[in-house]
């Protein structure tokens, strides 16, 4: 029983990170219909910027907001300098859907190479904001540590803030309208291009939060978030790609599922299992387990 609960707790912590990454992918997919492979690059660049702040100040809590703001700016720049232009230039025919996606794949490679040029390829330790020694109850120490609790709490807060923005504010209404029906949004006077850029900025900040939360439990390298991108995609697909709640729930389902595979089956099966979940979901329910009924084109 104790082992079971420990596995769930660790799964929730891992799933939170997947959920954040999925949120970053869903925000971009909803607003621009682009599957953003560059998200892993944007997140790693933001995390390296946070790393620079830590190496100068030794203060994680200063690095955190700097990384988040950098993530938002990087996201906005990717949209303005690349995606917006691509979507306008390749707006018809078979290339319209695929060209921006391939461009994000190219951008991922480019950002990783630039990060490698600036900081080198070696694995770096990242300062822990709180300890990674598990909580102790009496004589038992559980695997779930303050760092895991921090990850869960911050993820919850981020999700809550995004949910409030989307459901309760005019900006959220503009974001949803621009995502669902950009033409009607325009004809209602909404600046859809600007709104989309804000969507990319939000996505960039969510990816940066995922990066700066997970890196202390792992290590930092130019490609250290690549697997997170895959997990984020799996979580987003489980959640149906469209909804923020879906991203969160998809992340938790994947996180807990992987934790059980790791704990009860074999630690070498975790990532094959993630891909198996991805393919199974796509085969059985392509719209996602909690996807919307309607398929949309715009």
């Amino acid at each position, binding site marked *: 029983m104790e082992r079971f609960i420990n596995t769930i707790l660790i799964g929730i912590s891992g799933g939170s990170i997947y959920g954040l990454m999925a949120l970053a992918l869903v925000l971009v997919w909803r607003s621009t219909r682009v599957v953003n492979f560059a998200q892993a690059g944007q997140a790693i660049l933001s995390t390296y910027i946070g790393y620079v702040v830590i190496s100068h100040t030794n203060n994680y809590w200063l690095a955190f907001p700097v990384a988040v703001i950098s993530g938002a700016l990087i996201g906005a720049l990717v949209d303005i300098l690349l995606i917006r232009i691509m979507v306008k230039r390749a707006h018809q025919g078979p290339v319209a859907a695929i060209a921006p996606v391939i461009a994000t794949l190219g951008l991922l490679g480019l950002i990783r190479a630039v990060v490698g040029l600036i900081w080198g390829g070696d694995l770096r330790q990242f300062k822990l904001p709180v300890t990674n020694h598990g909580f102790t109850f009496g004589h038992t120490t559980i695997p779930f540590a303050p760092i895991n609790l921090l990850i869960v709490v911050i993820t919850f807060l981020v999700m809550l803030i995004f949910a409030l923005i989307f459901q309760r504010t005019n900006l959220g209404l*503009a974001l949803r309208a621009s995502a669902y029906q950009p033409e009607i949004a325009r*004809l*209602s006077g*909404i600046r859809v291009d600007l709104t989309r850029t804000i969507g990319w900025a939000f996505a960039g900040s969510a990816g940066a939060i995922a990066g700066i939360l997970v890196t202390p439990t792992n290590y930092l390298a130019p490609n250290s978030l690549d697997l997170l991108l895959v997990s984020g995609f799996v979580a987003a697909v489980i959640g149906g790609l469209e909804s923020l709640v879906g991203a969160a729930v998809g992340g938790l389902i994947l996180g807990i599922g992987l934790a059980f595979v790791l704990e009860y089956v074999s630690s070498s099966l975790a990532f094959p299992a993630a891909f198996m979940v991805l393919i199974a979901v796509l085969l059985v329910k392509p719209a996602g387990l909690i996807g919307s009924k309607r398929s949309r084109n715009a």
Partner: protein
Amino acid sequence: MSGLVITNLEVNHGAIRAVRNLSFTVESGQLAAVIGANGAGKTTLLRALSGLKHVHAGNATWHETSIINKKPENLVRSGIVHVSDGKAVIPELSVKENLALSGIWRKDKKDVARATTEVLDLFPILAARLSQSADSLSGGERQMLAIGRALIARPSLLLLDEPSLGLAPLIIEQIFSAINSLRHTYDLTVLLVEQNATSALQIADIGIIINLGELVTVGPSHSLLNDPALRAAYLGY
């Protein structure tokens, strides 16, 4: 003096020149019905006027200011509001959110509230459905919602694309009488694109008949309604 002045307008739809050398004038405060068969270029004309389509040549001015090749959202903000066809609502949003869309960028929030109240008085059925998703509305209710949302932007020029499309005759009558009353209430200039020629011409001041993108004739709507040759050729009876 003049409201909407269109001169030698040329607009492509895909590879086809859908609007050719089109010129006409709608005086401020008039309701003009644009009549023509399917494929006559009516929708392309409206989309060009609301900034959704690129204008190849010619010009269109509203109160002496050119409105061609501008961003749709900027045209809306300057009072030119297009209600596109297909019951232009966002089904994923609630009725209230659909209405709120054209108020969120407006500075005068008191007037947004006032406009919203006016719309709900004009279409009481929407008031009863505020928190429902727009997806649950009937075709007629969606059209009311789309027109209502346009009104909250406080338009001076209203571009309506086939508001009667797919609606039952009784609902069409309701929609047309609403259009007729609101244009007097708000002193609107209206460009109404319709295949339902008779209903449109009955509330219109002038009729503009186009065919294959070109102007056939423009004149007072009552004389168009009574012209046997035109009736046979374009009005279908």
